[in-house]
């Protein structure tokens, strides 16, 4: 829908459209387009993620957002900063939705410095408020990769060993202004088992390639806004835990939400341990009875991780993912060429079928089922029908 108004104003979009014309010119038989390659990798992502791997479900993620001068570039609308912050907002929501027992912190970097926007915390609201505020920041100077990574390490290194420590850098600039040799820092990151991933907004920078390769993260460069979103969402899924990370049983508390009525004699309005809000009800730590208004949280008093059962259930699908659908060429299909999910005609050259119920889907639905639904609609339908 964004495309429509742009297409009408050709004089404005003129520069950006030239490449489209170019691409049509060189559709020689030898050259597979980059889109083809991308499509393959999209598929691969779905198939790859299915294996019996241990996942780092408790994540501590530091998000580093570049706020340097190059964020004012208008190749994302209205500019890179606004577009990125908007996407990051959805990312934050999605992140906490899928990783309820994880934490997130945001760091911004500009003018050769790095600053903490929010501390590591498990509350999406706080981050989103901060992000909304950040839209008005002035972008200036160069970013410093070194400083921001350094700042992130300061908190990450104190996190317990069984959690996955991650940094995700959104880098727009092609240069970084560092006070010291970044190679040393990469070694430190590696030894601390911090996984650094980078999403580049303009082009491939060598130091990021090295950084991500060494620390085991991923490095992607966006093509456009929708690709950007896709890449961000890749990081919603918990990464496989490194085999060397400690594993231990963790004590967790499942506090019940208690709403005390005013008539109750024992009940006193109390200030929540983590915030300044005064309320009657809340969650009480089963160990020390500290009061919290929101979950999940780590108890400030006794250090117990407090979650609610639905939270844990939500991260369940990561552990038992839906099987990958089998890919086959469209010509082989005997039946009607319609996707079982969207009912659209199957036009692409390959189709995807669920191995257990043999229903046929198109690429888009395949991706949707695996990324969002986490269960095959036809299988569920059959199950309910049989009851």
């Amino acid at each position, binding site marked *: 829908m964004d495309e429509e108004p742009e297409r009408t104003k050709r004089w404005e979009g003129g*520069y*950006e459209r*030239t*490449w489209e*014309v*170019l691409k049509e*010119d*060189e559709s020689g038989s*030898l*050259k*597979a387009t*980059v889109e083809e*390659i*991308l499509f*393959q*990798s999209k598929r691969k992502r779905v198939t790859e993620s299915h294996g019996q791997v241990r996942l780092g479900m408790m994540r501590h993620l530091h998000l580093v957002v570049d706020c340097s*001068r*190059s964020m004012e570039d208008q*190749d994302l609308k209205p500019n890179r900063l606004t577009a990125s912050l908007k996407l990051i907002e959805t990312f934050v929501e999605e992140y906490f939705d899928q990783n309820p027992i994880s934490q997130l912190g945001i760091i911004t970097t500009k003018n050769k410095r790095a600053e903490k926007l929010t501390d590591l915390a498990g509350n999406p609201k706080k981050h989103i408020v901060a992000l909304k505020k950040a839209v008005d920041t002035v972008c200036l100077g*160069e970013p410093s*990769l070194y400083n921001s990574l350094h700042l992130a390490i300061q908190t990450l290194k104190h996190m317990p060993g069984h959690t996955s420590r991650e940094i995700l850098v959104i880098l727009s600039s*092609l*240069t*970084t*202004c*560092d006070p010291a*040799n*970044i*190679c040393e820092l990469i070694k430190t990151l590696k030894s601390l088992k911090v996984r650094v991933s980078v999403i*580049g907004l*303009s*082009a*491939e*920078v*060598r*130091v*990021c*390639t090295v950084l991500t390769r060494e620390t085991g993260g991923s490095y*992607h*460069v*966006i*093509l456009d806004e929708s690709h950007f979103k896709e890449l961000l969402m890749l990081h919603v899924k918990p990464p496989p835990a490194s085999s060397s990370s400690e594993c231990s049983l963790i004590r967790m508390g499942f506090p019940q939400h208690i709403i005390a009525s005013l008539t109750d004699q024992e009940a006193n309005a109390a200030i929540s341990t983590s915030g300044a809000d005064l309320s009657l009800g809340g969650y009480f730590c089963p160990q020390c009875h500290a009061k919290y208004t929101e979950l999940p949280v780590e108890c400030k008093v006794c250090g117990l991780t407090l979650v609610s059962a639905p939270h844990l259930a939500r991260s369940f699908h990561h552990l038992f993912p839906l099987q990958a659908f089998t890919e086959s060429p469209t010509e082989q299909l005997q039946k009607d060429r319609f996707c079982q999910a969207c009912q659209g005609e199957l036009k692409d050259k390959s189709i995807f079928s669920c191995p257990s119920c043999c229903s046929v889907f198109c690429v888009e639905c395949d991706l949707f089922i695996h990324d969002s639904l986490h269960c095959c609609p036809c299988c569920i339908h059959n199950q309910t029908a049989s009851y």
Partner: protein
Amino acid sequence: MLNIEGLLVHFPYDYIYPEQYSYMLELKRTLDAKGHGVLEMPSGTGKTISLLSLIVAYQKVFPLEVSKLIYCSRTVPEIEKVVEELRKLMEYYSKQTGESNNFLALALSSRKNLCIHPEVSSLRVGKEVDGKCHTLTASYIRAQRHSDPDLPVCRFYEDFDAVGRQMPLPAGVYNLDDLKDFGKRNGWCPYYLARYSLMHANIVVYSYHYLLDPKIADLVSKELTKKSVVVFDEAHNIDNVCIDSMSVNISRRTLDRCQTNVETLQNTIQKIKETDATKLKMEYRRLVEGLKEANVARETDVYLSNPVLPDEILQEAVPGTIRTAEHFVGFLKRFLEYLKSRLRVHHVVQESTPQFLKDIFDKVCIDRKPLRFCAERLRSLLRTLEIADIADFSAVTLISNFATLVSTYSQGFTIIIEPFEDRTPTIANPVLHFSCMDPSIAIKPVFQRFQSVIITSGTLSPLDIYPRILDFRPVTMASFTMTLARTCLCPLIVGRGNDQVALSSKFETREDFAVIRNYGSLLQEMSAIVPDGIVAFFTSYMYMENIVAAWYEQGILENIQRNKLIFIETPDAAETSMALEKYQEACENGRGAILLSVARGKVSEGIDFVHHFGRAVIMFGVPYVYTQSRILKARLEYLRDQFQIRENDFLTFDAMRHAAQCVGRVIRGKTDYGLMIFADKRYARADKRGKLPRWIQEHISDGSLNLTVDEAVQLSKHFLRQMAQPFRQEDQLGLSLLTLEQLESEEMLKKISQIAHQT
């Protein structure tokens, strides 16, 4: 194991590029025809391994047809790279066939790189090492040692001389370091061992000069067998190498040093006369006999002929006027005085060799004939006088070579005497340029002697000009394109600034403020969107200085420096290598850098900018050679008269090959990618564009011919994003990377036949 028109070739990799197959096909046809070939294939597509594996296979199957491969490369690192590829191939061979290999392959370089004598090898400069080695190993020095055992000795050479000659080097692949190791283990001199083993080695890898420079070729390569295949790699500049090897420059300093040389000669002769007069008499008798020995050798076709030693003089005796040592020294003195008087001019003189000879006859009565024998006579004298340190006599050797050349060739050379340099007309610095204009003179013996000569490089376009200027007839001329799974190079021709000012480095607009500013904004915009390294080439140092100064004043440099650091190539080699090092560091750690350098400079020729070291190259202007140079003018005139090549054609050819060389620096393989920006509107013209190598040309679409800076920036941004997407080997398979099965499919073979473009 590939089947190339019936020849089974072992190829040491699992996958092969289609163009490699095609290249081998053409190469095989050339060898079959026993002719010469010109082949152009882009760098980074495995030219070296294709060449090696095909020729080795050919040698194995037809040992009588091709008995030796002589691989000439330009620099020591390149030589070493070739040998390492060869080692891989040989290991693969022995693994496949299961039997030990009886192939001997070795690299040869100068004494500087091979010497293991503790004192001699500690010297840094090549000339010093050669000189010092000579004082230890010359035959008469060693003869003297019999009477006087206290003289210093190189035990490595002595051991080699005593034992090494009887024991041939065992089969295997020897790189420079392997030779040194082998030498150390056995106590033999690696340099002489390598030179001696050259004769029976199956594969020799060495520098151009060992074949093309007549002075060195005579020592090293003259006994190589006729049934050899000679390969000149990176041969796009071969004509200049040929010309340089035959040209002589004489300055006043050369003459002064020559003067002292002649005096030393005279004193030595005097001394010898008092002690050992028979020696000189012996020499005299030998000279009367003439150079019969050399003549016989040449007739029986044992030696590679030497262009400095023309055929005719071999049949004659050394003329009487210079036969005795004193007379010859007197002759040299006269010649020297004449040259000195010629250097005392105040205006530029240009004359042909016959004019020069007539003048010298008129002024000091020197005939043409004795002049021709000068080089040979001097060599004989130095031998007789038993002078150890030949390096000291380089000046007089130079003069005598000049004398021989000037009297031998009436065509193809010109003499230019300039009293001062063009840039500094007030400082007197007279130089006599004896300049060769015909590269075919130096390379002629190579083409005549060897059965197949292959000239190959990444940038040889337009192919047809090389046979013309080198004067030979190739049986194959082919240019290969690069098959790509993704378009990893993006040539853009930027012809206009954002304000529509035409961008050009041509002489009239050189000082134009608007052009300089637009060039600046091009670099500035690019510095903001291209990651890591950018290399920018200017047409000359002068032009670069002017532009950079103007940019500084306009504050453009400051803006650029916000995005990337700036490094500049200077004529000083040490400074440049320092700048290069820092440049690479800045690319490595994410700061990003720009290297400003000059076409035809060191950076444009020998340095590769793989991957992040060069994501974009910007060519500011068309790198025409400095056309006001008199030497160039003379050469152009000669080309027009002799080969019917128009001045303009040659100049454009020369400029475009250098431009191609510069921009080709960024693509060093199929996984690499880079922008190539030609910032001059003249590149859009068909006559310029058509002279670029085909593998670049085919990616220039009509849409990228006359871009403004902004358009170029948009295209580049898109290109860089596309290229940053993950790219794995599987994506290449079947398209630009083939397994054996894929290669043998009918369809693929048809495609491959289109890769080679015959001319």
